[in-house]
């Protein structure tokens, strides 16, 4: 066991870093009430704009709120929402793409052109428009991002299904009279899933980043909820108080990059074909 952990770290040092980062942030999210020294919403006008120090490790914001506590509570929003976006878009997108690829012809044409329409919009703009139209809430922001994120899963899934569809084991199932839906759900999709999961794992970081971006622009969370993107935008008005933006910004950076490291490792393990080196 110990040996295999060492081997893993030696083979994937960056993945190990990513896992540590995520472990720390997930721990923060789960244990926020225990770890955070202050209530993230309580204002203390007597100690506004305090630089990082022993009383407030990450300093305080314009209302005298403790930034360290707010960053910790922020993990409760960012991490689950990033994961939820990926689950939603991956589930919908891959089923959609699988149906298109498997049934082909007109179904394929129609379904994929719809996906193309969504892809033709700049993702962040469409997400902004949707989030604004749906109204300001965390769930709506997640939905908005998921809506713009699913087509890439659909495209990938469709491509994979097109190759698998013609393979011998699928043909043999069809020959023995298996139901088409059963073939799709039980044989084809499971055989394509590993590549899609690789895409999903690298997508978590992007999802968190996009979510933070929406909050930064004023869509997503409402005050007093502590959310990293919103906290960054809080601090840009006065750059002299750099710590207001820096710590939540650094958290966004760490979590996104951690997700990318982990995603890379998962790809290497699950999908040897995508390795570029031999």
């Amino acid at each position, binding site marked *: 066991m110990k040996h295999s952990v060492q081997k893993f770290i030696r083979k994937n040092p960056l993945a190990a870093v990513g896992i540590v980062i995520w472990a720390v942030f997930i721990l923060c999210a789960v244990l926020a009430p225990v770890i955070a020294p202050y209530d993230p919403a309580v204002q203390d006008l007597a100690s506004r704009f305090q630089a990082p120090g022993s009383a407030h490790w990450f300093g305080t914001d314009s209302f005298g709120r403790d930034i360290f506590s707010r960053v910790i509570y922020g993990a409760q929003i960012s991490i689950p929402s990033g994961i939820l976006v990926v689950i939603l878009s991956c589930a919908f997108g891959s089923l959609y793409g699988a149906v298109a690829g498997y049934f082909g012809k007109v179904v394929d044409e129609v379904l994929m052109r719809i996906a193309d329409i969504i892809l033709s919009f700049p993702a962040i703009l469409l997400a902004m428009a949707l989030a604004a139209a749906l109204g*300001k809430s965390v769930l709506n922001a997640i939905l908005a991002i998921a809506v713009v994120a699913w087509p890439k899963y659909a495209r990938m899934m469709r491509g994979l299904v097109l190759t698998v569809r013609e393979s011998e084991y699928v043909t043999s199932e069809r020959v023995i009279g298996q139901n088409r839906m059963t073939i799709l759900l039980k044989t084809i999709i499971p055989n394509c899933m590993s590549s899609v999961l690789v895409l999903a794992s690298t997508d978590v970081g992007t999802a968190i980043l996009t979510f*933070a971006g929406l909050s930064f622009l004023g869509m997503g969370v409402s*005050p007093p909820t502590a959310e990293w*993107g919103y906290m960054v*935008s809080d601090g*840009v*008005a*006065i750059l002299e108080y750099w710590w207001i933006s820096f710590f939540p910004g650094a958290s966004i950076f760490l979590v996104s990059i951690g997700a990318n490291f982990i995603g*890379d490792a998962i790809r290497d393990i699950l999908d040897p074909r995508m390795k570029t080196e031999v």
Partner: protein
Amino acid sequence: MRSMKKMTAVILAAAMAMSLSACGGGKGIEKAGDSTTAAAAPESSEAAGTEAAAGEETTAAAEEEASASQIIIGSAMTYSSLDPAHSYDWDAEMVLHSVYQSMVTVDPTDESKILPSAAKEWTISDDGLTYVFTLNEGVKFTTGKEMKAEDVAYCLNRVKGVKGNPSFLLDTVDSVEATGDYEVTVKLNAVNPALLSILTRGSMAIYDSEVAAANGGTCDESDTFQAYIDANPSMGAGSYQITAYTSGSEVIMEKYADAQKQGSIDKVIIRNIPDASTQQMEIEAGDIDFALDLTADQTALLEGKENLQTVTSKTFDIFFLMLNASEEYGKELANPKVREALKYAIDYEGICALAGNGAFTPAGIIPSGFLGYAGESTVTRDVEKAKSLLAEAGYPDGFTFNCGVIPDMAPDGVSFMMNAEKIQSDLAEVGVTMNIDSQEVSVYLESYRDGTEQAVIGQWGPDYYDSNNQLAFLPGNTVGLRAGWTEDMAPELAALGAEAAQETDDTVREQQFLDIQKMMDEADAPYIVYLQAGRTWAVNSRVQNIVPSAAFVLEFADLKVAQ
């Protein structure tokens, strides 16, 4: 090979993270870059002089500037036109005031004092319905034409006729006529003690009526002079002349040599800088001479910096929490007991401290500086009292309500969002949850004006500097209806308001306004006025003789530049 790929991943992720912060912060930074390059040439401060010397072409420009003085004002422009008949924005006042003369003007240190301007004297008939103004002779517009009574009549009739934003100001005016070359007679259909104050506004500017009539001016709704006036040099008789105006971007004004009041600075440029942090960077770098829209937190940082001074002045702008009084939209807030409870739940001192710039809480809807001002508020925060009032009203465990807020606006440097977050936190302590509902300005205005918002954070800047203007807050009037406060909910108040609107004796008016505010307080009116804003500008210390005005912001003709 693989490590290369991971490196790329690291760099990409970093770039993504950075591009995120660049989205908003960068908006400012980019702009700053643009305008620095643009400003390097025309800037006339000493620092820019040395900078300009670096380039061959700019040396000549720098020399030229040494003799011609100029200042640059950084401002978050709210206007999209400078046609007086359509202008209704507080920051357009400084342009209109300097470019045009109105018949009368106000003392910048005391807005209740009306001073002569284009008119040298005036008489008011005993019934208060006829005003006769006598104009100064020999005043020339920039077009060379002499200002006569016909110009005044034309311009005022145009304000009334085009049905623009300021037209309602002249609702009580029946007719404006030239009754002589230099005599203007204004007839009213109802007594209006605020008329002179209204006539000081920038929208009442006087310009060459011949040019207007020849270029689409018709003084009714088919009027097309607005497009002409915005595209051409101004034709007023003020100390400055607009020589170039790009809507939403820049106004360039040059000294008018034949003006009655001569300015000392040759050229005044107003540049639109919507973002306060960009204004801060530019004023620190010396790219602009005035930063008009800084928050108190920003000016605090600039205090004592070399080459900078801060100028604090008053405003008549009041900020309030509107709590809808109608059952349909106000829900819990329709109960006066609830509104009283909220009044005691708010930490006024804290809000004013956050707003800074000399903000304080007035006792009612009449701001300090107006007739009938009731002094500073004596209400202090009392959490226990608020809780017991809530229990009495039937909400011992509090309740939840929605409050509409415009998130990225900070008039007078007072951020609506900061006010909202502070009030939210205060109310949370008495068990009331206030959901902040951030809304786009246009969305906010529509639902607020329709009176369908449960609550909003609102701001009221007077349309003219007379207490009559504040009567809009009374039941059945414009703001009253937005708060679901109809006339039959408080008939006595509505009646007293109607009486005060027509009263001409100032001592009687003052008492009426005081009574109105007391009655509003007792009736737990659907507004909690929590502050009257101050205003602080950061100004390059080379600029001297700055006289701020709550009415017309700033008189450019007064300004001097140290050489």
